[in-house]
Structure formats: C-alpha cells, structure tokens
C-alpha cells in the first residue's frame, strides 16, 4: 500500500518519461529521468501524502533515488 502511494506521487510529481507503475522498486529514479528539481516536488508531495516532515539529515538526493529508498525513509518516520 505504501509503495502504491509512493508510485502515485511519482506519477504526479516526478515528471518521469516512463510509467511510475512499471518501475522496479530498486530502479534509480534519476537514471529513469527524474530531474533534481522534480525530486524536490516529489519530496514535498510525499510530506503532504503521508503527513510527515523530512528532517534536514534525510534531505539528501540519495534518499529519493528509488522507491525502495523513499519507502525506507518513510519507515524511519513511522509510516508503515
């Protein structure tokens, strides 16, 4: 369920040239075409979707490089 919501956010805000639904969980989103600026929009949309706030130390580019890494970051924030 969490991964599906992440994919929905990526489809809306990631500006990916490929379907977010078809991306493997470990696919590198930057390699898939997500721009650095789009990753900011994804981060903001994730905060909205999951009602969380990423602390400064988690705001690295690597935290948003794959569905797996986003899911792990959200888990750290208590999202199951």
């Amino acid at each position: 369920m969490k991964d599906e919501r992440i994919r929905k956010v990526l489809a809306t805000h990631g500006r990916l040239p490929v379907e977010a639904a078809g991306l493997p969980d470990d696919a590198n989103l930057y390699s898939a075409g997500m721009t650095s600026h789009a990753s900011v929009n994804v981060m903001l949309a994730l905060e909205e979707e999951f009602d969380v706030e990423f602390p400064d130390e988690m705001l690295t580019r690597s935290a948003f490089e794959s569905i797996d890494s986003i899911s792990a970051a959200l888990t750290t924030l208590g999202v199951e």
Partner: protein
Amino acid sequence: MVQKLISRLRRRRAVGVGIDLVEVADVAAALASPRADRYLELVYSEAERRDCATPDGRVDPARLAARFAAKEAAWKALGDAAMQLGWRSVEVVRGRHGQPSLRLSAPAARIAQSLGIRRFAVSLTHEPAYAAAVVVATR
C-alpha cells in the same frame, strides 16, 4: 563570462566540472504551490532568497532556477559522493560586484577537500524559459 572561466582554468588544474539546466516554469510552479514556503526554506538559503527578491517583494523564479542549477552543477562536479548532500549544501553567494561564487556546507566542504578541490568557478545564466549554470572545480 566564458573568457573569465578559461583564464581561471589556465591558472588552476580543473578536477571536476558540472552543468545543469532548469526549466523556470518548474520553479514558478513550486512557488505558486501551497507548499511554497517549505520549498523555499528547504532548498535556498536566506541570502539566496534575498538575492532573488524583486522590488515588489516577490521572488524571481528565473534567478532561483539559476541557483538551483548551480547546486546541481556543483554536485556533478563533486561526483558520486554528492548523492549524500542536501539542497542547502551548496549556496550561491554574490561578491561585492555581484559576481557569483559558491559557499559549501561542512559536509560538502569535506567531500571537496577529500577530492583535493580548493576552489570553484561558477557561471549562471537565465532566460524567461530556462536557467543554467556551469561549475568548474579546481585544485
């Protein structure tokens, strides 16, 4: 602008280079969103926001986009290690005559030091639709 960069590179050995292009519309959309304050706070320093302010109190999306491009270009110049950095790790500051330079956070400075980088040359440009930056890292 380019001549100045070439002149600097003749004096110092380049060890990294980065370039980035940002659509101004993307930045404008973020500024128009309900999360605009959070966007500004997370990505840009107070000085960067001040440098991009318009006389009527708004923020110029094209100038912000150029600063975003500079951050990305600096990360590219730093290589893979920069994946561990955040958006506030690289800041564009203006010199006395308006010339841009980069100020790095402590983690970014440590990465630069480990690569033997002592200085960065940065050049920014923007048009209504796009903003771009080039960063050259030298010893």
